[in-house]
């Protein structure tokens, strides 16, 4: 893990989803992100944390300050040890109007953040997202 400061939130129950998105907002706020970016990040975390609990039973959310000299950055890793996503391409391209499941959450989250990466295989899924902004 990063040497930067951060938090780890176990995702087991619905209230953990709320805790994760609130932590994300707080950390983004502390790093000087404007309100719209805080909301984008919190919303994306909410989608991904729910997916982890819903499809894998439980997961873990790491939120870290990855800022450097020039850029303020919040990175969020949401990881689970569930079945994995068999057809990730399909899950990501399913239309929003027709899907309220996994694809909707992933796609929604991706549209909200500056960086989005997903690695998935049976037994392990890791989604990494980040918002960043240039420092003044």
């Amino acid at each position, binding site marked *: 893990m990063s040497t930067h400061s951060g938090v780890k939130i176990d995702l087991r129950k*619905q*209230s953990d*989803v*709320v805790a994760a*998105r*609130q932590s994300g*907002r707080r950390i983004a706020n502390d790093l000087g992100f404007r*309100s*719209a970016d*805080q*909301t*984008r990040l*919190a*919303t994306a975390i*909410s*989608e991904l944390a*729910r997916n982890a609990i819903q499809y894998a039973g439980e997961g873990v959310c790491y939120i870290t300050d990855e800022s450097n000299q020039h850029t303020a950055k919040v990175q969020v890793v949401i990881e689970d040890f569930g079945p994995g996503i068999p057809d990730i391409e399909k899950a990501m391209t399913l239309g*929003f109007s027709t899907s*309220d499941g996994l694809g*909707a*959450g992933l*796609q*929604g989250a991706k*549209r*909200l953040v500056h960086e989005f990466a997903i690695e998935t295989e049976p037994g392990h899924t890791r989604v990494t997202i980040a918002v960043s902004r240039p420092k003044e």
Partner: protein
Amino acid sequence: MAKIPILKLGDILLSTIQIDLTDQDALVFQDDLLTNVKETNAEGVIIDITGLDVVDSFMARVINDTANMAHILGAEVVLCGMRPDVALALIEMGRQLIGVETALNLQEGMEKLISIIEGKRK
């Protein structure tokens, strides 16, 4: 969990969501509101979401479904108080609150709801 209060003002139900809801809380709220609509024969419902700082795809669906179900029960629904950041995030996600009337704040929401109800009575 905290119960979301639902107030009755004449033929209108007013509900203000002031805390961050879990998925289960949202579903309980939906159930409570619809039960209230049925029991009180409400003609209109205002859902004030000033206190929600995140509306993700699940919450958006619950709001949508609640409005549609209330409508089927004969009540008009106006959603008010959505924060600009929340509206922005919903649009960016490609989410729409289809078929839900919206207003900027509680006062405008009330005016809109009354005008819809009066229009229906004519």
